[in-house]
């Protein structure tokens, strides 16, 4: 695969990029800090020298004017790409966002508007070459309005709906949209939070997501148990949701 990867510097993205590079996929890395990108590219090159990273370019989900240039650079370096992966995202606790409106706005802007607009750019380019795979990390937080993730969940809900729509509209034209819905995964993003039962590890998530990308699965819950957890949550009546803290 020839992959444009936004978010490979940390967390699940780091783990997934390593897996892809290990099996020989060609990667072009996008992210907000040039030095971080260089360090991640060097890491991948040292691990798998025969499949070194093709290049890197700055791209900030909070700044939509960076998207086109980043994808141009990727296209030039890879000689066209067939896969776009977005693991980049921002999280803040409900408490923090209630106390700080600017932070809430930033999370909403990155996780919803920025991500959707980036995907629009990517989608057009993939469709122009006859299709490909667009794999984007949303969250189980978008499945139901829940007390601990009202704002973050709203952004991810919007993102999930958008991706679902893309899949409905463009699959016939060859664009496979893969929506990844992680439950709790132990990364830097969740470092300050108490892990619930079934908390996942990034490497296991990466393995599962890669299988989903290869199989063109429209939706992946990861760790898989979250599919069943969310099934229950979606069916809980409102009066119960008002009572519980989950």
């Amino acid at each position: 695969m020839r992959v444009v990867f936004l978010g490979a510097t940390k967390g699940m993205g780091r783990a997934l990029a390593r897996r892809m590079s290990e099996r020989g996929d060609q990667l072009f890395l996008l992210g907000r800090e040039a030095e971080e990108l260089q360090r991640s590219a060097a890491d991948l090159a040292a691990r798998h020298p025969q499949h070194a990273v093709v290049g890197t370019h700055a791209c900030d989900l909070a700044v939509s004017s960076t998207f086109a240039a980043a994808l141009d650079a990727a296209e030039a370096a890879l000689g066209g790409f067939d896969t776009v992966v977005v693991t980049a995202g921002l999280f803040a606790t409900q408490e923090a966002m209630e106390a700080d409106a600017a932070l809430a706005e930033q999370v909403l802007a990155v996780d919803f508007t920025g991500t959707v607009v980036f995907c629009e750019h990517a989608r057009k380019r993939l469709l122009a070459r006859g299709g490909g795979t667009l794999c984007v990390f949303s969250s189980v937080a978008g499945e139901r309005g829940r007390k601990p993730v009202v704002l973050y969940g709203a952004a991810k809900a919007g993102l999930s709906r958008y991706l679902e729509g893309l899949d409905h509209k463009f699959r016939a034209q060859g664009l496979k949209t893969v929506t990844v819905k992680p439950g709790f995964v132990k990364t830097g993003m969740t470092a300050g939070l108490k892990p619930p039962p079934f908390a996942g590890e990034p490497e296991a998530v990466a393995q599962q997501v890669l299988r989903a990308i290869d199989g063109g699965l429209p939706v992946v819950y990861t760790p898989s148990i979250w599919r069943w957890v969310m099934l229950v949550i979606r069916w809980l009546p409102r009066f119960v949701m008002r009572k519980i803290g989950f």
Partner: protein
Amino acid sequence: MSDRGEPTVAGWGNLAVPGRELLSEDLERATRAAVLSRGLGRSYGDSSLPPPSHREVVGTRLADRILHWDGQTGLLRAEAGFSLWEFNRLFLRRGWFIGSTPGTQFVTLGGMVASDVHGKGHHSHGCFGSRHVRSLRMRLPSGDLVECSPERDPELFWATVGGMGLTGHILEVECQTQAIPSPWIWSESERVDDIDQFIAGLKEAGKSWPFTVGWIDCLSRGKHMGRGLLDRGRWATPEETGGRSLPVTRRLTLPVMFPEWVLRWKLTTQAFNTMWYWRHVPRVKKKLCHPDSFFYPLDAILQWNRIYGRRGFTQYQCVLPEEAGHGAARRFLDLLTRRGGASFLCVIKDAAAEGQGMLSFLRPGISIAVDFAVRDDTQRLIDALNELVIAEGGRIYLSKDAFTRPDHYAAMDPRLPQFLAVRDRIDPQRVVRSAQSVRMFGDPP
């Protein structure tokens, strides 16, 4: 979790204190005002735990990127949370091995420097920090970011090697790795009848074998005291391996928890096998073996530390110096077996040159390591062992310790004032400290 649901952190001995790990890929940021860094928590005692007044220690294991690799010379530079397990997974098959490996591969480069770890190859390859580390990038207690090496601020460098995290946070490690002729080990195991034979055997084997270690049966006393198995090994030649490639480990990630009964069963089986082996194998057994089973036999049982139950356990490791003579190990074992309470196995190793770190553990002599489940009399037992070690002129390994009294440690290690003087220079307020340094070096709680 503690009984009150408060989060806790613990070392490998499961002796927990209230606190938690702040995990981050970005060590430069995470260490800005941090009291201590820890890696994979494989030190047994309290060296990786926060002082009582703090609840948070930086966890480095997400900071695991390789920054530079030179496939010609084997020079590696990586972030401090890069694990030895990952190194082995990536580089063994490419013909490289770490300069010095401890008995588990679930450790980070930062932790290997801070403990100046040693292994079966101590007599041939020395300790990790002392012999193989070329340079460190650090966040000092003052907040400054610096690079240090044996040439650049050597005092800071040598205080950091073996310094148990007390000189600041290691962010990046540059080290020299070793080229190997094949990824397999050629090993020989020999039954040994008593402690004197053991010491002689280790010294003799060390002349021609790069890796040696002994496993002593701690249940035998009297004439058979100190009997056990002596393992020696070297990298196999390509001819000996017949070109066989090393099987790939299936494990995806560093170990997760196992239910306790599985462990108990596995460990009991292993113990049984070992005993059986001692009685029935030919005197010398030779074979080609996987480096995992040669260097890291205990890693196969993953969370074996949990079988010791809720009170946890501790390891006692000391070095008895050459000057104390052959009799020292016998006197130590005699006290140990008389007092009881130790596990059925203990590990014995001859040590060569003293590490260059100011607090590096090893010095020429014999190192002995033994596990104890924590009981009411553990403190008394360790006091007694320490008194013997002091009398013999030896010292203990801080990385394993949770019980040694400050005056005992001070009596063992004449280098301590020099180390503390470096801390006075770079950290007069003792911003960076651990539960161990509070207990042992009188740091503010």
